[in-house]
Every structure is written in structure tokens, then in C-alpha cells.
């Protein structure tokens, strides 16, 4: 069993691990020849299955993997990995390898951090030195406390304890199966979506304890702004679901509309986005006929004039969990949200900057809460 590679893009790797670590601590990392898979299945909340082509984060020319089962499965504390990767920011030379110490398997991250320094006082000018700034570094002298400007090199080693998982231990793990979605839509700018969602969640949290979830009647179509209305009109109050944190209602249709709403006894708010894209499905994966049977395509064909009630698919999701999911926004990805009405929300998160070959895709499975 052998794994060793140089990091190509430690920033992306670091951001990826940061986003993943918000969902859970223990991450199953599966190293394969072509892709690296990250899976987090928390006890409750959203699970994520990520598949990242080796070249996105690692340097393919130095990527070495040897294993009897053609893959290495490890369990790692993803937040620890993320913390360690912070040392690699701005470094030109970062190596990650599997090793062992005192019979404990480790992921060893070795970083050569080089940065330009003014010399005087041995200060670093900034943390983002890319090491390419000066092709002709001043020849270093041997005196301690060298006062001239020069390139400073620091070696950093981070040894992250991991657990090796046998292939049989992960055989039973597979991605959840979902019915065909009724609606799929590209989400708007995640930063905006997150700030509005967080705002809603906060408003509902500060609300009285006697808060009860209410079903939100859709407001006028095409509304772009946030609307407030007092409670009382049509609050179908039911028992609070198991988790006490506020639930957001997210709904969308196949005509480019996405609606984010929250309702409590005291307030009801909704934001609606229009003119979003409902991406076409990949014709390579199924026949035209099969595709036209899909509920989403049926919905797409519905005329908008049929009324906005008909084509909507809705899910109820935990506000805080949703906020953690949206932390993937730091990688500025393209996100396709697939709505299975009243059941689940599946997010396909495509990272930007894909080169040829397989795409980096993270799949989030979010359960819908029942009212």
C-alpha cells in the first residue's frame, strides 16, 4: 500500500476540506487512480459524496498509488486535515504521503514554504508569497540573522493520524437512491443565497419559543423582493419536527423560479428568484423517450400559464444544516439543485476550472422534513 503525491492546488484542496468539515468530522477518503472520493455521512444532517479528479488537487505526474484493491480507503478527521493544509498556502512544494509511525498510519504533509523576506528582522512580507516572485534569489550568506533581502525557506511537516479502512468495511456504503426529481434548477449566486438563508434562519431563531412551523402560501409570481406578512392567514400549524432549529422552505419549478421562505407564527418571509436556468439533461444517458417521461421534463413542458401552483416542488430543510451545505460556495461552483417534492433535495456541485476529463462533482443529499 503506497500513496504519495505532490499537491497541485493546495488552496482548492484546503477550501474543499473546509467546506466538507462543516458537515461532519469523520471523512471517508477513497484514493483511486483517477479520482479521489470524499464521503461524509454524519449521524444526522446532510451527507456528501464528492468525486474529485486527481488532477484537480494533486499533481498527476507525481501521483503514486499502489494497492491490492486498486484503491486506498482511509478515514481522516477532515477538519484536522483542513487545518494542516493551511500550512501549505503559498507554498510551491507540498507533498502528501501515506506513512506509518509507531504503528499508527499517518498522512504526512510536507510543505516547503518559501517567501520573500526583507531580511531585516527576518520579517515575512506576506503570507501569499508564491515563490515565483523572484527568479534570481539573492545568494544566501551563512551568517545568522542575515540582514539582506532574500528568500526564506521553511519546512513544515504535519502528521495527521488516520485509520486505514479495509475494502470490506466500505463495500456496504453507497450513495442514497432517490426518485427522479420533479425539478432541477441552477441555484443563484451562493453567497447571496447563503446570506438570505442565514438571515431568515436567524429571524426565525430569535422568534418566540412557541414558534410553530406554518405552511407558506405562495405569493404573487415573479416577486423579486422579500415580503413580510403577519401570521394568521393560513398557518397550518402542526407539531414541531424533531429538530428545533428553524426550517426553511425551498421550492422551485421548471420555469426558472426558486423560492426561499420561512414561516413562523409571527412572521412569514419569502424570497423569489426568477429567470434561473433549468439545465437540460444529458442526452447521452438515456433515450429521448425515456427522458420525456421524467417528471422534471413533464413539468418543463407545462405551460407557465397553467398557474404557478402546479409545477412547484418543495422541500423543508434545516436552516443551520443548509448554511453548512452552502459553505461550499467558497469554491464558487455551479450548483444544480434537484427537487424531489416533499422528500429530498439533491445538490450537484460542480467545481470551476475543470480541465478535460472527469468533472469535480460533489453530491449533497438533503432530506426534507415533514410538516
Amino acid at each position, binding site marked *: 500500500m503506497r500513496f504519495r503525491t505532490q499537491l497541485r492546488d493546495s488552496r482548492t484542496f484546503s477550501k474543499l476540506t473546509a467546506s466538507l468539515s462543516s458537515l461532519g*468530522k*469523520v471523512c471517508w477518503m477513497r484514493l483511486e487512480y483517477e479520482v479521489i472520493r470524499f464521503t461524509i455521512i454524519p449521524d444526522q444532517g446532510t451527507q456528501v459524496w464528492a468525486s474529485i479528479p486527481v488532477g484537480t488537487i494533486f499533481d498527476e505526474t507525481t501521483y503514486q498509488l499502489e494497492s491490492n484493491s486498486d484503491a486506498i480507503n482511509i*478515514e*481522516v*478527521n477532515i477538519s*484536522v486535515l483542513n*487545518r*494542516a493544509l*493551511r*500550512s501549505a498556502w503559498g507554498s510551491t512544494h507540498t507533498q502528501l504521503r501515506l506513512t506509518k509511525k509507531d504503528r*499508527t*498510519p499517518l498522512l504526512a504533509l510536507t510543505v516547503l514554504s518559501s517567501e520573500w*523576506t526583507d531580511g531585516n*528582522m*527576518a*520579517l*515575512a512580507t506576506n*503570507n501569499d508569497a508564491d515563490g515565483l516572485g523572484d527568479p534570481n534569489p539573492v545568494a*544566501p*550568506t*551563512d*551568517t*545568522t*540573522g*542575515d540582514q539582506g533581502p*532574500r528568500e*526564506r*525557506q*521553511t*519546512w*513544515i*511537516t*504535519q*502528521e*495527521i*493520524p*488516520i*485509520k486505514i479502512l479495509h475494502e470490506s468495511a466500505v463495500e456496504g456504503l453507497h450513495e442514497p437512491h432517490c426518485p427522479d426529481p420533479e425539478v432541477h434548477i441552477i441555484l443563484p449566486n451562493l453567497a447571496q443565497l447563503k446570506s438570505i438563508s442565514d438571515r431568515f434562519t436567524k429571524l426565525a431563531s430569535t422568534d418566540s419559543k412557541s414558534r410553530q412551523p406554518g405552511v407558506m402560501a405562495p405569493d404573487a409570481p415573479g416577486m423579486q423582493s422579500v415580503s413580510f406578512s403577519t401570521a394568521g392567514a393560513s398557518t397550518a400549524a402542526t407539531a414541531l419536527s424533531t429538530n428545533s432549529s428553524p426550517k426553511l422552505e425551498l421550492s422551485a419549478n421548471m420555469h426558472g423560479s426558486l423560492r426561499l421562505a420561512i414561516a413562523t407564527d409571527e412572521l412569514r418571509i419569502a424570497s423569489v428568484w426568477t429567470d434561473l436556468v433549468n439545465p437540460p439533461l444529458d442526452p447521452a444517458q438515456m433515450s429521448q423517450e425515456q427522458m420525456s417521461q421524467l417528471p422534471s421534463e413533464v413539468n418543463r413542458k407545462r405551460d407557465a400559464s397553467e398557474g404557478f401552483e402546479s409545477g412547484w416542488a418543495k422541500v423543508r430543510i434545516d436552516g443551520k444544516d443548509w448554511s453548512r451545505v452552502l459553505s461550499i460556495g467558497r469554491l464558487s461552483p455551479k450548483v444544480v439543485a434537484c427537487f424531489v417534492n416533499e422528500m429530498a433535495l439533491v445538490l450537484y456541485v460542480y467545481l470551476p476550472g475543470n480541465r478535460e476529463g472527469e468533472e469535480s462533482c460533489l453530491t449533497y443529499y438533503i432530506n426534507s422534513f415533514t410538516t
Partner: protein
Amino acid sequence: MTSLSLSLGPPALVRLHDALICLSKFSETVAIEAEPDILRLSALNSTKTGFASFAFEKGVFFEAYSFNSSNSGRSGNVSLDRFFCQIYIKALLSIFRGRIDKNKDTAVERCDMELHEDLQQTECRLTVRMICGLGVIKSYKLTYEPAAIQHAIFDKSKATSMWTADPRFLKQLIEHFSVSAEQLDMYSDSGRAVFTSFTTKITEGKEVLKHPVHTSVAADKRDFQEYLVEENMHVAINLKDFKAVVSHAETANATVTARYTRPCKPLQLEYRFEGVNAEFTVMTRGQADNDDAPTSTRATIPRQTPVPVPISTIRPRDPRPSVTPSMQMPPPPPRSRSIRPLNGSSTQENLSQKASVDRPAASGLSIEFDSLFVPADDDRQWDEMNEEEEPQDILGWDASGTQDAFGASIRDAEPSFSKQDSSRVEDPEDEMGLPPTQRLSQVRHYGLFD
């Protein structure tokens, strides 16, 4: 009567606040020592493995500073002019918090602190007055308590390894360490200074993922202003202490110097800025000797610093006069003998005063407080006091060199010795580990950590 008054300008106030924040990372209480030329704030952590001290110079740091000790009138002996007390750091910090660096009209323009201690007064307080803009004056009165102030002693001249570095550089090193790391090991390896963070907490077996991350950072020697360190000698200190020092040094923009000798010997971090001398003496761990410690660095049981030298045992107003002496009662090892004379000069006045002030009530007190240590028997009770004071008396004469300085009060006490304690004559030979003629300056070289 002892009085201390000082004034701080806004920049000094910021410095004082920063220093208090740093001290609060070591202990909950700050020890305040006033001397004619120096005000020292110090903190000793609960395990006695870390000692932080800031000495503020009279002329540079303060706008005004005056200190009058009760003793000065009588003796004129400068070395005795000290005042000790301790204060809960949070209480002090809450006064300074948010008072500084405001662009408001009522920003603090000056801070006056006053302390008057009078034996006749039942209530003594530290008074802090913030003189703010627009004529606003905020006054605070803080309670303080008497303290047995302890200093860690570190002999710089004996340090065999030292390095000097910019705090921002050190901060960059620290940033690589995981938040939960507890210890910092440092050593020199072929031209590189290696800093490794580790955690001694052993989490067994199944909880593999909770094992701490080992981080090691190898920096070029040239990144230090000076780096004279014995090759391959591992010395480990508490990372939290190191972080506290570095982050404070960074705010002060002062270059940090570390000095040390061997593992399990103390290490001192020091820097100076703007009339402040900051010293941090921390205990190191590691392999004490190649022979007698075959265990690895990680497994080595942390050694505590020896109990730091009490330079002031008790102040006169201390309501429990015999507690500290009693704690020293069990036959101490030779070393503690040798450092004990340090009690001498600094506490001379206190002890002698205590003798006169407290003795009338002594029998009652001893029953109340000392029963754990001595039977409530008059003769033994005098033995007790005797053992404590005698060496100090004798050494004290030599150390101060001015016998007349406290003659009056000592004489007050002495008759009671001779009258009531018949065994006193024999005691010196039994108890004394030191020739009574040894000078204090000599004694200092056998400091606590040697």
C-alpha cells in the same frame, strides 16, 4: 505607612493593559511589587512551571511615579523598600478594557493609580482614576490582598543556548501548530531550527482520529537574528506559554531572546521595550540526561520547577502569620536550604514587624491555624517561630550590611526568643545548612533552578 502613586499616559496605559492580558494567561492573580525605581507585575502559574514578569521602569514608563515605604523613614535602607500585594487580574483588566484608543471626547488622557497602606486602617484599597476628556473622571477602588510573592530565578550567564528572533517570525511558526497542541519541542538540526508541537495526552487505540497532529516546522537559522544552540538537544516547553509570550511581544514589537541550558532546566524568554522589561521563565521538559532518562521526549514525566524562592514571606497585615513558615517546616532538602537566605533582606522588616505585631496574639493564633503542624503547646510554638526566623536574622545582617537598619524592631523581638526558648542556642547547628556569613549576592548564584 506605605504609599504608592503613579500616573500613566495613554500609550503606557495600553502597554499596561497588554501586559495584564499576557499575565492573565499564566495566572488569575497578578502580583504587584513596588520598589523605588521599578514597578513589577508578575504571575506564577498554578503548576509553578511558568513565571511571567514585567518590570516597568520609573523614569521611562510612567509619567509620574513615587513610592514611599513605611520603612524608609526609619532605616533609609533602600533594599528594603518594597511593597507586595496581589490582585485578581480580571478586576484590573475590566477597568482598562475599552478605555483606550477611543476617538471619543472622553478618551482617557491620564490614569492615576494610588495605594496607601496603613496598619491603622482597616480598609486599604488600590485607587485607579481615569482622567478622561471633557473633565470626566472615573474612579475605581480595588481590593488587594497580601501575598507571598515568588520569583523564579534564572541565571542568564549560565545559559548555554540562546536565540533571538522577531516576534512576527515566531508567530508565523506558531500558526502552523494545531490549536489543541500542548507542548513545543525545539532543537537545532544541521543549520535548521526545528520547532515541533506535540501533545502528551495519549489517546489509546480506537480513537485514532482523535490523536493529535504532530507538526514540525524547520526554519533556517538565518531567520533568527542570533542562533547559538547546542545541536540536537531537545527542549520542550508549554506551547500555550510560548504563544502568550509571542503574541505579547508582537504587540510590543520587541525582539524575543530565549536562553536555556538543558532539558528539565528552566528556559527564559526575554524582551525589552519602552522602559519595560518582560521576562518569562518556564520549565522545560525533555531528556534530562542521556544516561538517566531513557524514555522518549514524549514519555518524559514533566518536572515541575522547584518552588520558586519566596522573597517575601508575609506582610505584617497578613491575618495568617504562620501559614507560610509552617509550610517550610518539614526538613527541607539541602537545596532549599541554600536558597532560603533570600528571604533575608527583603523580608527583614516584615518579619521583625510581624514579630512585634503578631506575637501578642500568637498563642491564640497558633491553636487556630497551626494545629496541623505543631501541638498547641507554648514551648513548641516558640520553637516553630524560632526555626523560621533565626536563620533569617543571622543572614539578614550580612546581606544588608546595615545592622542598625532594623535594629529597633528586631530588638523588640529578640528578648522574647531568649526568654522563652531555651533550646535556641542549639538550633543553629542543627538547622543551618548555610554558614551564616554567606552573602546574599553569593547565595543568588545558587538560584532556584540551578
